[in-house]
């Protein structure tokens, strides 16, 4: 249905429009625009157009390494979230267990506790006297605690844990949206379980895979807190770099250039994923 938008309809949309325009789109546009302004130690920026922020960001090895590391960790996080999230989503979508509601809740529950809580959990688990090291020593696999904190591995493990639910939900939707008769038909025509899965179920869940991966990738690329606490100075990523530039160095134009690169990476990934999705579908 849908009536003509009259005065009442406009009034309904007024608050959200004002909120998004004034406090979301305008400030973000202005912040990203600053990337082409010159840095000034006295003011926020000097109103002179320059390409020096981007030149420095893409020219210095230090920053190039940060960009590369961010892309690498974001890609790996998306990959491992998919590898772990797919069996989980598949199970939840196909199970007839009476516990399904509870199991679904257990996927959402960690998400609700917030980033800090889960990051702290991994500090406890991965520390020198943490559960993982204690177990490794008890099993006799190592004789001294292994250094896991302040490595890329720690950041990766925690990010996969924190962001995996965002992979599970789109996968779950696309798996429950499939017509169950299609799988049955494949079995009837003689395909085995594996072949049915790889040639029918998996291709049909493509949209969920693309959506989940894009979501996890962009969320990882913007992460600040988890890399800062679990990786320390050893695992500097784009998010932390922006944080330091704004709060310590107060170099807004350069921070803006870093943020622009971040946004560019995210949107190109989203664009690639969706173009890939449409090509196969069409």
């Amino acid at each position: 249905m849908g009536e003509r938008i009259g005065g009442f309809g406009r009034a309904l949309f007024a608050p959200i429009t004002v909120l998004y325009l004034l406090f979301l789109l305008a400030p973000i546009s202005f912040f990203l625009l600053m990337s082409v302004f010159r840095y000034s130690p006295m003011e926020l920026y000097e109103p002179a157009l320059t390409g020096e922020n981007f030149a420095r960001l893409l020219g210095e090895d230090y920053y190039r390494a940060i960009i590369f590391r961010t892309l690498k960790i974001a890609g790996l996080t998306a990959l491992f979230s998919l590898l772990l999230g797919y069996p989980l989503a598949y199970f939840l979508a196909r199970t007839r267990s009476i516990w399904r509601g509870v199991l679904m809740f257990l996927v959402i529950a960690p998400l609700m506790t917030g980033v800090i809580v889960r990051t702290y959990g991994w500090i406890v688990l991965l520390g020198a006297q943490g559960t993982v090291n204690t177990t490794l020593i008890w099993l006799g696999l190592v004789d001294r605690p292994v250094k896991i904190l302040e490595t890329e591995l720690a950041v990766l493990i925690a990010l996969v844990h924190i962001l995996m639910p965002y992979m599970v939900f789109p996968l779950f939707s696309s798996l429950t949206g499939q017509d169950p008769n299609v799988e049955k038909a494949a079995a009837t025509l003689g395909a085995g379980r594996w072949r049915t899965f790889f040639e029918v179920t998996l291709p049909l869940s493509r949209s969920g895979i693309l959506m989940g991966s894009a979501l996890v990738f962009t969320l990882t690329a913007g992460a600040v807190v988890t890399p800062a606490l679990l990786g320390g100075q050893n695992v500097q990523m784009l998010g932390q770099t922006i944080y330091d530039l704004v709060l310590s160095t107060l170099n807004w134009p350069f921070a803006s250039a870093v943020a622009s690169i971040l946004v560019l990476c995210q949107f190109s990934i989203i664009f690639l994923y969706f173009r890939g999705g449409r090509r196969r579908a069409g």
Partner: protein
Amino acid sequence: MPAERTAGSPATAGIGPTGRPLPFASAAAGRYALGALVTAIYVFLLAPVVIIIFTSFNPTEANTFPPSGFSLRWYAKFLDSGGFVDAFKFSLWLGAIAAVGATVIGFLSAYGIVRFLGRRREAGQSLALLPIMIPHILISISLLLALTIVPFPELGGLIVGHIIICLPFTIAGIIASLEGVDAQLELAARTLGASRLRTLWEVVIPLIAPGLLSALIFAFIVSFGDVYIALFLSGPGRTTLPIEIFSYMQWESTPVVAAITTVQILLIIVLGLVVERLVGLRKLMRV
């Protein structure tokens, strides 16, 4: 056909149609393998949360597991520390305000999207959910930047930021609830002479009350767990709990953090269960 049909039936699923054994000797083994894998994934998902709860009752300084005894000393330390208690109270206050703001604005927007946009509904819905697609760190920095230019209280910036990140969830949840409301009822109320506002107040809102309450609670949960918006907009007198914990953990991590986060986990789980009972969490997560 009948012969082929039996080839794929569960009874003979262990042998492929060509007589080759399948990767799993039987369908049952395949199910057990998936079951074991899923169990392992759940352990991975829940371990960090469970370990925090155990650690919070640990009598010693070290984050050891299994715990060496039972003690409430970290809870006592939490209640003694002014900083954490103040931050906890501030987060409760901020969460309540952001939740009310996001639910009211979310309700108006969701109603507009469902009843007034017609064929443009998809586009309207995507626009309303925009804050999910934008990295929260970017929203936060930009608000800080805006505040340095426009004279606007920084506390206001924090509240606005939280309302913005909660809105996608309240809108998605309320749209799902509104879809269950028959538009004929509203038409009937208006034919009988009720104004638009009265129809909203006396017909629509009572019908979707559980959905509104869920949106309110879920928005509170999102606000309470947020760290990115508060990262740039916190300050003296307006430090949220996650930021207080973040600053503390950059220097040390004693189990006092475990005690605080355990309280937080229990609060969130209870609220989450209420939402689950009311409308189902999945509606708010759009799955």
